[in-house]
């Protein structure tokens, strides 16, 4: 009995102690925290400008909140010698503890990107509060401009950025992806370029400021060396096996007008052939898709017609990929597709030999491209719908 009493007393003491000893020292109510939703970083002279988008819960319309009519967020922007120091400046301006764990996206200004991003990555990975999941993007011009857009379809502009990037590639480009690319020798990072875009031209109505992905920033090492724009963006993501829904158009092989295709399945396979320092990269591009719009008077009503379409698509792909690889390989000399990484994985022994000289070898890698396009699931809807039989050119 005495023993039992002692056990009970001890347990009670042990249980009560933390309540009084700890004093809840880490306690921080959710309303004592300022949630940073996105960070934009620019270089100004030798200093960093950190701009953060901070949520204002009062304006988010909780159950008891009479929404104050605010946007639900505001921006703070401070200069500092390092990013951490500029964040501290932001903190000293804020009655609530700034918390970075819910950062949705990290936006890097062009100037900073051209100077190199490896030095700034540290602060986004070091403390556990920082997740590796924020989406990363580069802007044309200053990064903070993206934060102050309307992006009215999402709650916050940074959320819009996040969703845009999530939909852009199969494997979203987050801090984690960027770090992986930065740290491995055989691949250089590629980041989407964001641009502020007006939703409508002024003649249509009052424009809202929107965000769009306007291209791809090509990095060599940690420095941005150039951009890809227009069709080349699709071809690049396709070569990286990252394209989600590729839409492409070609002029009709016979007759007039264009046809648009949607490729839901696409796969690029790379086979390195290595003789000494001569590296040849075979690119095997396989695509399966369907016609989504036939704006021509050509009707591919049988295999021959389909074959013609497939042939011209294959030719177009061949041309485009060659062009794209030419730009990154010779103009920018950036291994964006990750040829080095492919050799590393498929021929590790050769890679051990080549890796130290990869930067010199890469521009001389020969590329052989094979494309295989298959059009499927056309069903019965072969002919252009709005044309009479005699207007249609059959293959």
């Amino acid at each position, binding site marked *: 009995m005495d023993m039992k009493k002692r056990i009970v007393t001890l347990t009670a003491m042990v249980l009560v102690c933390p309540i009084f000893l700890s004093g809840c020292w880490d306690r921080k*109510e959710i309303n004592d925290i300022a949630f940073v939703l996105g960070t934009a970083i620019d270089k100004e002279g030798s200093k960093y400008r950190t701009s953060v988008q901070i949520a204002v819960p009062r304006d988010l319309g*909780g159950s*008891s909140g009479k929404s104050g009519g605010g946007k639900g967020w505001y921006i703070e922007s401070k200069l500092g010698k390092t990013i951490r120091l500029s964040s501290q400046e932001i903190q000293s301006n804020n009655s609530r503890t700034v918390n970075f764990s819910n950062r949705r996206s990290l936006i890097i200004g062009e100037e900073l990107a051209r100077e190199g991003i490896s030095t700034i990555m540290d602060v986004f990975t070091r403390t556990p509060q920082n997740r590796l999941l924020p989406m990363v993007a580069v802007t044309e011009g200053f990064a903070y401009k993206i934060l102050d857009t309307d992006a009215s379809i999402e709650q916050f502009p940074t959320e819009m950025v996040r969703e845009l990037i999530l939909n852009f590639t199969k494997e979203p480009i987050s801090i984690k992806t960027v770090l992986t690319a930065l740290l491995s020798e055989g691949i250089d990072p590629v980041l989407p370029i964001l641009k502020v875009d007006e939703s409508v031209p002024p003649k249509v109505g009052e424009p809202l400021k929107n965000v769009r992905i306007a291209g791809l920033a090509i990095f060599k090492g940690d420095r941005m060396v150039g951009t890809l724009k227009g069709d080349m963006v699709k071809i690049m993501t396709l070569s990286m096996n990252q394209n989600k829904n590729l839409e492409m158009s070609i002029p009709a092989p016979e007759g007039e007008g264009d046809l648009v295709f949607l490729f839901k399945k696409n796969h690029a396979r790379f086979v390195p052939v290595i003789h000494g320092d001569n590296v040849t990269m075979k690119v095997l591009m396989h695509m399966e898709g369907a016609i989504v719009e036939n704006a021509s008077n050509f009707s591919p009503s049988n295999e021959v017609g389909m074959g013609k379409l497939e042939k011209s698509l294959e030719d177009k792909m061949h041309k485009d990929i060659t062009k794209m690889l030419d730009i990154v390989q010779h103009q920018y000399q950036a291994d964006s597709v990750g040829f080095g990484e492919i050799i590393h994985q498929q021929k590790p022994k050769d890679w051990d030999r080549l890796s130290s000289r990869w930067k010199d070898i890469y521009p001389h890698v020969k590329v052989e491209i094979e494309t295989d396009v298959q059009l499927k699931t056309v069903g019965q809807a072969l002919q252009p719908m709005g044309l009479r039989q005699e207007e249609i050119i059959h293959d």
Partner: protein
Amino acid sequence: MSKSGGSQGLISTSDVMLGLPSPPIEEECLQKDLARNIEMAKKIFLDCSDMVYRDIQVAQDQKAFLFYIEGIVDSQEIESQMLKPFIIGYVENEDEDSLESPQNTRVSLSQASKATTWGDIITGVINASVVLLMDGTTEAHIFNVKGGVRRGVEEPQTETVIRGPREGFTETLRVNTALVRFRLKTPKLKMVSFVIGDETKTDIVLSYIEGLADPKQIRDVTKRLKEIKIDGILESGYIEELIEDHPYSPFPQMQYTERPDTVTAQLLEGGFAILVDGTPFVLIAPVSLWQLMQASEDYYERFFISDFIRILRYMFLFIAIFLPGLYIAVITFHQDMLPSTLVLSIAAAREAIPFPVLVEALMMEIAFEALREAGIRLPKTVGQAVSILGALVIGQAAVEAGIVSAPMVIIVSLTGIASFTIPRFNLAITVRLLRFPFMIMAGTLGLFGIVITFVWILVHLTHLTSFGRPYLEGVSPYYKKNQKDIFIRVPWWKMIHRPQGTARNNNKRMEKGINGTPKPDKGW
């Protein structure tokens, strides 16, 4: 009330016993003089207004005296089987001299005995017997004519089922034993009788199946029951607290049930049951934590449904214990853990709330417990008013006034619902109690506090026993064979063995599993 059924009954009107003098009277014998015996009887049962005394003339020169307690005996039976025969017999055969043994000649009641001491007579009277004293003899005749109005067999109030027997135990011990006996038609079903309570003399029956129950355990329970010395047993809860292994544990180590089928199932698994007169709640033991999470319906519905519901129940057990604590911990310490949109909407909802989450949660949980308690005690008609008040005041108004946040209301109500999914009320109460240490620890130490509390409870559970059987039996210690009836229930044709821990001597339920799927007939 069957005549052969009962031998002893209970009457606990304390005024019966108040006039009782100290032991010597109980040992005192009857006198030959009827008048003195009558005087004695009236003295013993002084001020017992429910006593009935009746003089009768059984023969020309022989008087008799008859007394019993009204209400607990079957008066009609006495009238037709005792008074009538005596009076008619007296009229018909006046020369009769064989009245030495009236139970053989006149009285057609099956349960008859003789007594010579006042102690036996008192026992008889309070156990619903009629005592017949005859002039000139020192022997009293005692006829048991148990009767009186008690509740009949009704549907159990606390354990309703959609599918399954609708019979529930009643307050009458013999009805209860019969309900079990109806289901177990074997002489191996033992019903050992005890009388506990100096004043209440409550009849208690320890029931088990010979050959299935562990004899050591039965000896142990018998010993524990015999050691009870108390003035009264009014409910099986008294027994439960007096004989359980760990009285300081918050976890129930015995299960109570109103359902004869549950008792039968327990007996068939090698356990035992304690039936107490005066309450419909029968205790069954040994139990494990898993058993308290089972409902009788689990075994009656098809196994897919039972499995789904059982898994659901375990999920909600988890919610009932952890949810408020987790919410507090996450909101006060680990905001990083939540998805951004969720954390922002919670922050938005909490923006105007004046209290810290812990205070808010404690307030709401305590209010909820009070509401529940108020609902139970109130008459049904008023109960509705309570639920309206509760829903309006605590739910809506508090949120609108900005005193409590809406997420907190969701958490509290979800926790409340979760605790109602636990099929055993005593375990549900334990879970509700344990929620509070979790909440306080979560509010002071965050997830770390939750882990500490959980480990503490786990350590407690692993060394907890119910009549010597581990409380987590089947999982810790791990028995592979028991897995078929812990988190899931396998179909009956796979339930070949009894649980390994309890029915060790005879652990096969059936010879081999029968799968009813018909084999394709060759003729087809």
